[in-house]
């Protein structure tokens, strides 16, 4: 490499320094700390002993019984599975609701579009905790839903729908929390959709259903995938909705991790679960990137 080239690459390094600092301090650093914590011995007062120990990871799958023997313990796998299923369900429901919403918004006049997009983002202006509390009032015993159902006579006044503290309640909370993250990317890829393609398709005898499944859906696939990841990832680690609306009865990954750090004082175990969660997400992102790349090559 010639001198000029060296200068250039040095300049590039200096120019990228702020990025490296931000990435290092806020992303890579904490990750290393987490990974480090996960392979240390736990200290029962919180924190860690500086001693290498893989019991954090072992604990995910195995328990030690009274005779000091290792015993397979599926409890945490069930939690991971349940979290995964709930996150998948929340993502699918968000997609089913979010796709038509994004489609509807993208078909409006520009002035109306801006207002609608603004409305979609409004929930972000309030704290998630407070918004989730609001759902307790809506779903809870003698809440908005039960009262109005009672009022129109669908249920008796004394009956309860028992909506709270169920997987349904958690699901509602998750979908509510993250659906804007589904709507926005789909909307943005719909905006890029050339209306002439829709005209061409209807000119070529496409019904409305054909239009959606043969043209709009395939062409907005990048937005759909992006939105699904944005919803799926935080749902997998969510703990506010599961705690408040699920009542912590059915533990999910997010709550489990939070519990290990805050109450059980088993930091290595919490960190180990977090690392597993991270591995799960990275795998999914990697698979998606591969699918996306193929999609781009085709498009």
């Amino acid at each position, binding site marked *: 490499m010639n001198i000029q080239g060296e200068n250039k690459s040095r300049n590039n390094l200096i120019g990228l320094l702020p990025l490296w600092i931000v990435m290092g301090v806020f992303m890579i650093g904490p990750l290393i700390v987490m990974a480090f914590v996960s392979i240390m011995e736990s200290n029962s007062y919180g924190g860690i002993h500086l001693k290498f120990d893989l019991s954090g990871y072992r604990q995910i799958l195995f328990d030690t019984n009274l005779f000091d023997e290792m015993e397979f313990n599926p409890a945490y796998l069930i939690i991971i599975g349940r979290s995964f299923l709930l996150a998948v369900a929340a993502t699918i429901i968000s997609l089913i609701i979010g796709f038509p919403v994004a489609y509807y918004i993208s078909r409006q006049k520009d002035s109306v579009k801006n207002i609608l997009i603004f409305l979609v983002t409004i929930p972000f202006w309030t704290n998630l905790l407070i918004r989730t509390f609001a759902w307790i009032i809506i779903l809870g015993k003698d809440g908005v839903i039960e009262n109005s159902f009672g009022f129109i006579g669908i249920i008796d006044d004394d009956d309860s729908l028992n909506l709270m503290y169920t997987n349904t309640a958690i699901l509602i909370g998750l979908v509510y929390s993250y659906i804007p993250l589904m709507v926005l990317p789909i909307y943005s890829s719909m905006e890029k959709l*050339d209306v*002439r*393609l829709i*005209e*061409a*398709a*209807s*000119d*070529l*005898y*496409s*019904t409305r259903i*054909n239009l959606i499944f*043969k*043209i709009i859906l*395939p*062409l907005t696939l990048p937005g759909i995938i992006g939105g699904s990841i944005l919803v799926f990832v935080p749902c997998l680690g969510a703990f506010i909705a599961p705690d408040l609306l699920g009542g912590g009865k059915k533990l999910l990954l997010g709550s489990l991790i939070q519990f290990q750090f805050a109450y059980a004082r088993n930091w290595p175990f919490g960190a180990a679960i977090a690392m597993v969660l991270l591995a799960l997400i990275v795998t999914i992102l990697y698979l998606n990137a591969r699918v996306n790349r193929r999609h781009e090559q*085709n*498009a």
Partner: protein
Amino acid sequence: MKISKTNAIEVQNVTKVYGSGESSVKALDNANLIIYDNEFFTLLGPSGCGKTTLLRLIAGFEDITNGRINLFNEELISLPPNKRPVNTVFQQYALFPHLNVFENVAFGLRRLDKDNDFVIKRSNEVLELVQMQDYAFRRPNQLSGGQQQRIALARALAPEPKVLLLDEPLSALDLKLRQAMRVELKTLQKETGITFVFVTHDQEEALTMSDRIAVINQGSIQQIGNPEEIYEKPSNQFVANFIGEANLILGKCEKTGINGICKLQTGHKISINIPDKFNKGDNLTIFIRPERIKINKSKGSSLSQIQEFTYLGNAAHIELLSNGVSVNATLPIDKVKNFKKGDKIEIEFPKSFAQIINT
């Protein structure tokens, strides 16, 4: 060439207004025309004249404000675009980027629920017709503009539409390709026997390809006729100016009738057919194409002087000033060899090519 006189499309009193209230724009104003079956019909006009609007009304992409459109004697406007047996070739092709060439072409047939064997057979047939059979499994973005053009054409032809609508399909191609495609399109139309409705702002394109042309300006149809009629006998000054070059010279009527006489502002007195509806002393506008003007060497007191002499290879373009009025003439190169800028010359307006034109 024989054109069967079945009416393919009847446009009756069609008006299209965009928007409402004060901001409304009249894109088409009471348009009437008939397009015959098996015809290459061109809608010609400057941009924004309403020609594309008319095409989109036929295709069904716009709602009609007023009037009626019939397709083979059946009312068309109540049908959505997907129920109309017409197909469109779009200006920027609008090929589906997520489908390969074959699936693009097969798209219409598949939506019509044709059986798979037929879809494959017919798609390959039209791909062959546009000479793109080797590209069936490419993606549209792997094709050049001209190739995409052919696929757009194949896609629209595959379902065998009763009428093919073409919205300035050649405007995105470079000159050489455009000229080649003109011939191909014309051939294709004759081969398939499908009625083509072709929208363009390029008068040369319209003249070379069309069986008949409708010239449109500001939402109203100015003239309908075959290329020769449009060029030789324009119905008004807009048509005369828009198609080719025109000399429009003011004059005064001195005598009406077949051997009428008109005194032009150029100072010439010409013999011309002046209908009896005009009176002596009326102001007239005389239209004559530059290539119809004849010039001779000056014999003394000449009225005209050459202002500008442009060499065009096979011809020369001469700008004259005659009695203060500018006149353009285009002449074969051997007729102008001895002239140069500043020369005084005689000009002549042959009776058979000069005509009175409406404003």
